[in-house]
């Protein structure tokens, strides 16, 4: 018995004691970047949580208890995330929504697992479910689901016969590029070239000239818009008559500006933006959000986090308990729970399955239109 264990035991009993005293309220944590580069996303996650919690409280609360929201700002930094995880666990929350980035989510995972606190995040990195913690489930879709969807679109949908896959050297882009190449091959598609470009060098004509000689049907690029737009414009300048399909990070207005005239007809594959979600829950909650906060959520991610929270609430109400183990098991068994972002299904390892992606085509004036899958 060392000092650490004793203090640990005291802290634990303090947590138990405090949760016993405050028996008419129950706490839910929000771990999100409230300040810093992703502040708008983090604040929107907090807002959406408050919206749903207030709705629940007005209906009489959760199993008769009022929900209290405890927010911790992790600034999208791993170190701060670890501190937040301890802080929120000590505050006695039974579930945590967030964080926004995969990095900050991963840094907090183990602490929540040890404290038996549920955690749900929109992080898309495949590594988030590697540790198979029962406390964690993802409310968005992993990067690997994008590659499967993209491959299906290119091989089965458009019937491309000669596919070029390009990425940059970043782990996100190269990972998505490799995954897409593998998915295309798994569908029996023909990847004639898998290349990498250096992000930021601006001159991609050497690689494109090499590709031109291979006569591709389509060029798929899994990197960011700053390079994707230039790639598309230089592709047109070199008169390479292939379609261009971009991964989710190409979906930015600057892609259109960089690609110029060549932007027209470019295809982008991304998660649906909030305003085009077709589900009844989406209409209800997004208009409530807009009415209260006077703006739309900046992206789909705060909305998927809201779905994570709604799944937890559903779990509490159906199991009639705050036992996190039971809730986690229930969430993993739900069949097509009606989420704002579509049917909500969680696999045994905490992965959300049934990914929905949208194919956009760029118009000449820079607007996008959804093309049917």
């Amino acid at each position, binding site marked *: 018995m060392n000092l650490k264990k004793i203090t640990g035991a005291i802290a634990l009993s303090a947590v138990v004691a405090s949760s016993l005293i405050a028996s008419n309220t129950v706490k839910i944590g929000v771990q999100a970047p409230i300040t810093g580069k992703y502040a708008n996303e983090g604040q929107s996650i907090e807002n959406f949580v408050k919206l749903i919690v207030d709705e629940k409280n007005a209906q009489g609360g959760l199993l008769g208890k009022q929900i209290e929201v405890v927010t911790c700002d992790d600034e999208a930094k791993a170190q701060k995330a670890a501190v937040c995880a301890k802080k929120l666990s000590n505050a006695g929350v039974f579930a945590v929504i967030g964080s926004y980035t995969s990095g900050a989510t991963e840094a907090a995972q183990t602490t929540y697992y040890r404290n038996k606190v549920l955690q749900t995040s929109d992080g898309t990195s495949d590594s988030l479910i590697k540790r198979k913690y029962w406390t964690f489930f993802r409310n968005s879709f992993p990067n690997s689901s994008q590659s499967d969807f993209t491959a299906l679109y290119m091989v089965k949908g458009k019937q491309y016969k000669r596919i070029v896959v390009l990425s940059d050297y970043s782990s996100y882009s190269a990972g998505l590029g490799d995954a897409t190449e593998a998915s295309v091959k798994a569908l029996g598609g023909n990847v004639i070239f898998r*290349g990498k*470009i250096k992000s930021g060098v601006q001159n991609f004509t*050497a690689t494109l000239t090499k590709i031109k000689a291979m006569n591709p049907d389509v060029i798929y690029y899994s990197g960011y818009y700053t390079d994707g737009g230039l790639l598309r414009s230089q592709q047109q300048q070199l008169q390479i008559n292939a379609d261009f399909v971009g991964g989710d990070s190409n979906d930015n207005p600057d892609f259109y500006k960089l690609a*110029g005239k060549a932007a027209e007809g470019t295809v982008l594959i991304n998660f649906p933006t909030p305003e085009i979600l077709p589900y009844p829950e989406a209409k209800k909650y997004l208009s409530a959000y807009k009415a209260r906060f006077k703006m739309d959520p900046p992206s789909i991610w705060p909305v998927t986090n809201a779905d994570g929270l709604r799944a937890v609430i559903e779990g509490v109400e159906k199991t009639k308990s705050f036992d996190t183990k039971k809730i986690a098991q229930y969430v993993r068994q739900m069949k097509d729970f009606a989420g704002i972002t579509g049917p909500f299904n969680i696999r045994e390892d905490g992965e959300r399955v049934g990914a929905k992606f949208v194919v956009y085509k760029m118009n000449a004036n820079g607007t996008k239109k959804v093309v049917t899958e």
Partner: protein
Amino acid sequence: MDTFLQQLINGLTVGSLYALVALGYTMVYGVMKLINFAHGDMVAFSAYVGLTIFTQFYGSNALSLVNIVIVFSLTAIVVAFIGVLLERLAYRPLRTAPRLSAVVSALGASLVIQNGIMLIWGPNMEIFPANVFPSTSWNFGGVIISFTQVVILALSAVLMISLYIFINKTKIGTAIRATAIDQSAAKLMGINVNRIIMTIFIVGSMLGAIGGLFIGIYYRGLTFDMGWLYGLNAFIAAIIGGIGSIPGAMLGGLLLGLFNAMISGYISTEWAETFTFILLIIILIVRPTGLLGEKTAEKV
């Protein structure tokens, strides 16, 4: 064959941009024995200035030849002014100081300009309009040359030839060459060294400004730290050609562009930078003064 020719055109276009920028390094080094690390950032600054003038005065309409000449001249004048200011503030007070002090001052100036760009225009990417030059291009049996490429190649060639004539055939050019050989002896011959150095900065900055504008028009995406990328490549070009030598900078730039395009095209983009530095090392081992550099006895 057409793939090879296309890579040749690609390489020459980038190469002439490197050459224009490399001239700024080599001219300053030739006269002051100073590596002006801020030059790359001046190039980035020119692209931003050019973009601002374009959007301020001409909106999004296609430009006439007169307007283009005005924008290029205005940008060159603004950048030349900043170049002179840079020399006055960062280099002239250190002219008699040890060489290391001047190098540190140059690195500082580079950071000041880079951060200045970020504060004025913001950290996000700025984008040049696509219609500065007509998007016409010609197809010669599978080899495609765009109008912009033709302008870049032609104007770079004209500028380099004029510079060569200016340095070798005019009185000021002779004075510049004299100052490069020996500053104090040049002073004794009645040459105003300060004025010569100012001229060098004006000409070097103007060439950099044209290079920056071409980079903006050709690649369109501007980031505040882009000067580093072009600065480094141009600096390597200047060393390959022999730093201090004006034809050397031109040759070095073109060679570097071609070499990069061929490595990227036929081996791998991943290895392009590695091979570039290997080339640099080999050239420095075989010819320490660069391809066209003159052998000079270093004062110790």
